[in-house]
């Protein structure tokens, strides 16, 4: 409880009053401070170590925010991927990439517990992917296949209906990300003296990266995930990294 001294009045000083004051002081210091003794919302940034950020190493040193991240990389045989078979299957039936549905890209989500409204959330991400198309043109040829990838932030459990139909709001944020028809992994003739000597895979990777800042992010459990759709056979994600910061 809060320390409330007995007021000493004029005239003879009563030992009881003095002892009560001393006793209350003792209790206060000796560990009987209650949570209710604190005024509401009294702790500010002045009570906390100021945060620092190292942009070179992308590391933060702070006790006043939340942070999470993920780095995903794998051998080519094990990479996570996106396929038209679950996003844009029926191109013959009038379905186009534009009106087909987004789907999750496995192993790309980060979940972040936000205890109270954040002043600001900052997301950095990076993708390196290659495109493989085995059917649209009859050969491995990425040029005919395109895809669209977006980063979504949601403080409700993510499902496909959510991803495709929710309206962007303070509880659902969507970063219009780069179209990703920008990648190709195709057979390329290496010629010598104008004679085709061998075929080799030339892998051209066009990296995607970005920053995304959102103010006044509400409390909750936020899922930050990568979703996408493609009309190609496979978009393989060679490398994916994400870093999320939340500041009170």
């Amino acid at each position: 409880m809060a320390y409330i001294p007995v007021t000493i009045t004029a005239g003879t000083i009563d030992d009881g009053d003095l002892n009560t004051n001393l006793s209350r002081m003792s209790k206060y210091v000796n560990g009987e401070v209650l949570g209710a003794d604190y005024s509401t919302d009294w702790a500010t940034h002045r009570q906390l170590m100021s945060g620092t950020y190292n942009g070179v190493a992308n590391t933060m040193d702070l006790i006043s925010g939340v942070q999470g991240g993920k780095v995903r990389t794998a051998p080519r045989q094990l990479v996570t991927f996106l396929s038209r078979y679950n996003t844009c299957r029926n191109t013959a039936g009038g379905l186009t990439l534009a009106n087909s549905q987004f789907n999750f890209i496995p192993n790309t989500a980060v979940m972040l517990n936000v205890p109270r409204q954040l002043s600001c959330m900052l997301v950095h991400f990076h993708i390196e992917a290659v495109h493989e198309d085995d059917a649209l043109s009859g050969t491995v040829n990425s040029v005919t296949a395109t895809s669209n990838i977006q980063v979504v932030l949601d403080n409700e459990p993510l499902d496909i209906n959510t991803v495709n139909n929710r309206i962007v709001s303070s509880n659902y944020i969507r970063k219009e990300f780069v179209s990703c028809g920008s990648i190709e992994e195709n057979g390329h003739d290496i010629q010598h003296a104008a004679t085709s000597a061998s075929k080799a895979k030339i892998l051209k990777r066009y990296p995607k990266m970005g920053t995304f800042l959102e103010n006044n992010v509400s409390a909750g459990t936020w899922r930050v995930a990568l979703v996408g759709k493609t009309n190609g056979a496979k978009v393989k994600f060679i490398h994916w990294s994400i870093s999320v910061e939340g500041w009170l």
Partner: protein
Amino acid sequence: MASILNSNFVAGETAEVAATNTKFTDVQTQTGQLNDENVRSESIDLWHMDATASMVVASASQNTEAPGYTKTYTTGAHALSPLVLQKNGNVDMVLDMGSLQTLEQYDVLRVYWNLEVTAQVLSTGNVYSGSVYEAAGGLFWGVWLQWSTNGSTWTDVPNQGSFSGTTIGGVAYNTLQVSNTTTKAFTPIPHVAMYTDIGNHDIVYRYPHNANELYTTGSAWFLRPTPSTHTYRYFRLVLAGLLTGMNNGASPPVSHIADIGPAFLDPQGTDASITLRRCYLAAMHLKGA
């Protein structure tokens, strides 16, 4: 842990000044020795944070607004002044922090940007050869950050060198001196990528070579003033090009990034250009001590 073990006053006894004061100074002493044991059940946590006392002084972002909006920047258009990156409607893309901000000592200002390159076009006179110094560093575009207090008068951010007219070997160039301390907010964008085949031919691709090879790039800038302070409200990105690395041939050489964009003006050749899409600029200003 601080602990008070004072004895009581006794009724009927004369209270001596020294003894009375000691009872209170004992308390004073102990209150200076409070530690985690004293407040173990009342520690400060996120829940106690004043929701109105954010760690963030200000934060904001700006982008080109329309995802499909593209803008082509040419060497001929910018002459010796950098071009301001634009947003939908062909107006300057300006990040407004909402009000005039004061960057206090130990505050941290972090600015990030990214952009997507959708096309690059070489000049017909794309092989540049200076009259005195060769452009040995390859060709690239440069994007960097400027700030302003009023939205009309702009300066390069601190630690970012600015292009200025310099004479190198008797030839006037608009140059950015290469330095470890003055090029911290500079994003170079390669203008071409060259693939050399084994055999009888070389392949030179524009970068991106076709519409399916779009790529993104970006950079960041940080400032933690010690001890000076700054005021600002607006940010914008500017672009110049084509640039190339040069040095003056002295020993040791003095290196520069030289703006040779005017070399691509007609009649030397068609303007070289770069087309950008989905530019994004975000800033977060954190409180210091």
